[in-house]
């Protein structure tokens, strides 16, 4: 395998609330290869945005990286000076925030916002910046004559494309996109996902795609990282992880998803809700909702261990994964005993 572009090891991020620390991300470990799209999935509040933001170190004021490392092209992002980090932002690692389409500045034209990044950050001359802007708009499929328009003159989907153009401006190696298609309807969503795939293929860019939709992962990602309550519970190649998940949470997610390609049967929700991160349970955090939990699950936290090759899962019953998968398909398995 080639040298990873980004390698996280035991990365933890804490929020201070009052006198207490909430560990929002705990011991995250995974790699991102060059020219690949990695899906970061999990339910609301599991720490996806926190983790994504930590990689450009644009965290909330009450947040801090509590431990671990994130090595990008040989340098540990966690240990970099603010000045050095600033040098990486946009040029090497670009971030598209959650609801980016609302984050464009309403008082400047989109063209001048692009020019700003290109000249101030990228040190380009005006004329070169203009040419580059046109090229970027072509890449993301917007007519170049719309560079003079203001954000409100675009639809939500087009604003999202403008945000992608901004992220691409300085030719980064890694784009971190936080829920780039969640608020969009299916046609626009598809067009943006196709865009990301094309950029990966054409420019060899890597993408960390934050989403809660496993259909989106199945459509564009090469690898997937599943988080639950602040921890990575499963990671592996997309196809293997979705067709043969080794963690019960991922098995449950699959059942909860509508599938246009399959029969319209029952959907099976994962009953209950994730634990309060300020006060997490001991042992496996999924245990209160897991139909396969055993006594040891409530006392010992499972480690992320290989299941098959580079497909890993954090479950005490990983050796029985195949049998658990068979049981997980039945919706009775997920019913909460009365």
């Amino acid at each position, binding site marked *: 395998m080639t040298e990873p572009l980004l390698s996280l090891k035991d990365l933890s991020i804490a929020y201070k609330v009052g006198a207490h620390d909430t560990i929002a991300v705990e011991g995250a470990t995974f790699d991102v290869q060059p020219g690949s799209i990695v899906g970061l999935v999990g*339910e*609301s509040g599991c720490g996806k945005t926190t983790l994504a933001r930590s990689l450009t170190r644009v965290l909330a004021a009450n947040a801090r990286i509590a431990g671990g490392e994130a090595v990008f092209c040989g340098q540990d992002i966690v240990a970099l000076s603010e000045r050095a980090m600033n040098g990486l932002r946009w040029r090497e690692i670009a971030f598209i925030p959650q609801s980016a389409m609302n984050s464009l500045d309403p008082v400047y034209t989109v063209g001048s916002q692009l020019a700003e990044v290109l000249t101030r950050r990228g040190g380009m001359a005006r004329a070169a910046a203009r040419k580059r802007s046109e090229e970027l708009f072509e890449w993301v*499929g917007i007519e170049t004559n719309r560079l003079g328009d203001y954000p409100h003159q675009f*639809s*939500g*989907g*087009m604003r999202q494309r403008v945000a992608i153009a901004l992220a691409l401006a300085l030719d980064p190696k890694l784009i971190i996109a936080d829920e780039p298609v969640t608020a*969009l*309807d*299916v*046609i*626009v*969503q*598809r*067009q943006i*996902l*196709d865009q990301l*795939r094309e950029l990966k293929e054409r420019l060899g860019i890597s993408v960390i795609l934050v989403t*809660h*939709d*496993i*259909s*989106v*992962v*199945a*459509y564009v990602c090469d690898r997937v990282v599943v988080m639950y309550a602040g921890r990575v519970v499963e990671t592996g190649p*997309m*196809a293997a992880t*979705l*067709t043969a998940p080794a963690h019960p949470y991922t098995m*449950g*997610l*699959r*059942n*909860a*998803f*509508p*599938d*246009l*390609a*399959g029969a*319209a049967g*029952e*959907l*099976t*929700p*994962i*009953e209950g*809700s994730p634990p309060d991160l300020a006060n997490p349970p001991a042992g496996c955090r999924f245990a209160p909702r897991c139909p396969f939990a055993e006594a040891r699950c409530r006392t010992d936290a499972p480690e992320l261990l290989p299941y098959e090759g580079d497909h890993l899962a954090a479950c005490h019953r990983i050796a029985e994964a195949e049998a658990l998968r068979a049981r997980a398909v039945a919706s009775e398995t997920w019913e909460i005993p009365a």
Partner: protein
Amino acid sequence: MRDTQDPPLIKLEAAELHFPVGGILAQLQGRSTVVKAVDGVTFELHRGESVGLLGESGCGKTSTGRMLVRLDKATGGRVEFDGEDISALSGDALKRFRSRVQLIFQNPFEALNPRFTIRDVLAEPLENARIPKAEHEDRILRAMALVKLGDATQFMDRYPHQLSGGQLQRIVMARALILEPEFVVADEPVSMLDVSVRAGVLNVFRDVRAKTGITAIYISHDLALVRYVCERTIVMYLGRIVEDGPTEDIVANPLHPYTQALVAAVPVPHPDQSHEPLPIGRGAPDPRNPPSGCTFRDRCPRAFDRCAVEAPGPTRIQNRIVHCHLHAPET
């Protein structure tokens, strides 16, 4: 579309909801001064039917829903409920109508008054409808059981922020159902919810239908969701119906070129799926300046001469209705 003997509960005839926009400047510049959010929509709904309203953002789904429960008054055509023209209703008749229909809003986090406890939230419609106080507790518990909020007593005295999104959406549904309406419009009721919770809410929706026989419209842009709760689907584009038929037929064999793109756009949770480019032109529809003839023609991969000059009318193909010249008999 079902050929049943009994009269339809809801009947739309060339219904229109047009909004004035722009003002004098637009007028002077010769730009259109009206958005045709709903533009000549005709369909019938029979009791107990559940119909999905499908289409891209801005195609007029919410506007249609609001018109059906008379939050907006149709600006043209006719909207009938149980044989009566609802535009003509006023006073007591309008009040009675309002207790028979309900709209479930998109965002559960905004739909509930944050200073009301769940008990207050659910009692409010009962009070407005002058239901005797003695019946309140019982009806609240029944509504909560209907949406599967099992141990209701633990929720009664909580405030909305003390509930999860899925629980909140169930409360919103319970409130809409507490007066036992005959008809509900659910406007993207799960789009704000986490996926693992969505499944639960969709199942509740199905259960409620089975138990109460309620007539329902379910609004969404995602056919994968509509399919779980509606046996029939109506597809809209720029304020007009383009296709109407049994959901499973539409999933398996969409006839209208726009429906074909909508179906192809839905990602599925499997590794091997088509990555073919969508059969639809780029760009978003502009509701202020729709093309002449078929309003889909600027994005339609199969448009031909006739599409620019003539708006396609309805063609019946088995139990489907399609508005597209490709399917129309030769004139």
